[in-house]
């Protein structure tokens, strides 16, 4: 073995010290992560219990009011038929709410079962956004909210894009719903849809109660409502944003959140533009998928 000079020896020692420090800091990081997971596991039991009582509220309450009001309608005397308009609006709102809740519950179940292959087709982005906003019209009127909607860089050529229509609807609708839910009365919601050669950006900004820094990281967790009291004025059971995030990831996109307490929150959804040629896989014929034979291996 060749002899080390003092200098080399010191160098080697220094190197090992640095490596050790690095390993130590990584270990600390992992321990921190573990602690976090531990806390979450403890919480999960409590959340489950909560979830059941929430579901009861979310499903049974709208159903009972639909049943009650429709019975009223059927028993209305002839001279009071004008009341039907009001009643039917209430029924519609309750049924819409119920529909959204059920859609989310099934979407979450599908995601958790690993049964969410995207189904791409050409869709008209402007139309889709407008339709989804239209769905919330009565909610907007109820809270006296104004929507500022802006499409940027959209042309007749680029407003049809490849995406998964039903998933995009659920993403947009859940984030918008969240914005409406946490907006203050008489405020506004800014919706800006931008398009470039490589991506679609959807900004949904509200001026409501906002989210604290610590809470931003947990709003995408399932069953997470920042206000956990049963009688909270806000309905829903904290599935919406976790579904939106899972679907955005599935479409290779991202969601960014910026928020300040009492100033509101801005959600930016970015989705890549998909070229038809790159739509690998969904309709691939086996021969195209494989292979220039020599490099193929069988296991």
């Amino acid at each position: 073995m060749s002899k080390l000079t003092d200098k080399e020896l010191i160098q080697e020692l220094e190197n090992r010290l640095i490596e050790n420090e690095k390993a130590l800091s990584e270990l600390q990081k992992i321990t921190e992560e573990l602690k976090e997971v531990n806390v979450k596991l403890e919480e999960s039991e409590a959340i489950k219990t909560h979830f059941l009582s929430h579901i009861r509220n979310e499903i049974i309450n709208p159903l009972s009011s639909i049943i009650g009001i429709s019975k009223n309608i059927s028993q209305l005397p002839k001279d009071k038929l004008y009341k039907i308009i009001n009643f039917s609006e209430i029924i519609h709102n309750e049924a819409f709410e119920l529909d959204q809740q059920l859609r989310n519950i099934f979407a979450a179940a599908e995601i958790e079962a690993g049964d969410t292959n995207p189904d791409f087709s050409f869709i008209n982005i402007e139309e889709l956004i407008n339709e989804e906003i239209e769905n919330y019209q009565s909610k907007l009127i109820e809270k006296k909210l104004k929507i500022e909607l802006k499409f940027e860089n959209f042309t007749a050529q680029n407003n049809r894009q490849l995406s998964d229509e039903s998933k995009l609807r659920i993403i947009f609708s859940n984030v918008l719903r969240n914005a409406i839910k946490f907006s203050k009365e008489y405020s506004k919601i800014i919706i800006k849809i931008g398009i470039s050669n490589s991506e679609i950006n959807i900004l949904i900004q509200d001026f409501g109660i906002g989210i604290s820094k610590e809470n931003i990281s947990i709003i995408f967790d399932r069953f997470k409502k920042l206000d956990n009291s049963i009688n909270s004025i806000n309905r829903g059971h904290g599935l919406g944003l976790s579904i939106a995030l899972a679907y955005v990831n599935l479409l290779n996109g991202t969601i960014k959140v910026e928020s300040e307490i009492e100033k509101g929150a801005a959600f930016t959804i970015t989705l890549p533009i998909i070229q038809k040629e790159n739509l690998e896989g969904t309709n691939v014929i086996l021969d195209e998928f494989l292979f220039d034979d020599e490099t193929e291996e069988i296991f």
Partner: protein
Amino acid sequence: MLNNEPISYFLFPSNLHVSKEETNILTILGSCVAVCIWDPITQIGGMNHYMLPLWNGKGLASPKYGNIAIKRLIERLENLGVKKNNMQAKVFGGGEVLETESNSFIIGKRNAMIAFEMLDEYKIPVISSNTEGKLGRKIIFNTKTGKVKLHYINQTNGKK
């Protein structure tokens, strides 16, 4: 079906697919891992495709995470009548396609490790595997024969 051509199914990340009919399940792997489980007796098989090793309580408990994806795959096969002690597994992927600095972020290796650990726990033998390394992989798994064709790819087109 009249012809005997197997159905082709492209598996996206965070999903899993099981089938009683003969199906060629295709997928593309970078640092992701796919576990194929097959029963030679009933000739039923399935595959998952997960991106991260462990679910940490964030977001939904989906098969994006190895510990959930492997458990779900086994459950789904059991629902189709496959007995656990007939199951055989093959594990693919977990390449380090992106250069990383820190040891704790070698996602590919950790993805592969969780598969071997969990399958060992479930006592499902891993009869072949091809994991880690620097390259991405395309694989085709035939659910009837249990055969897997594998092809290396250089660039992964952003697939994880």
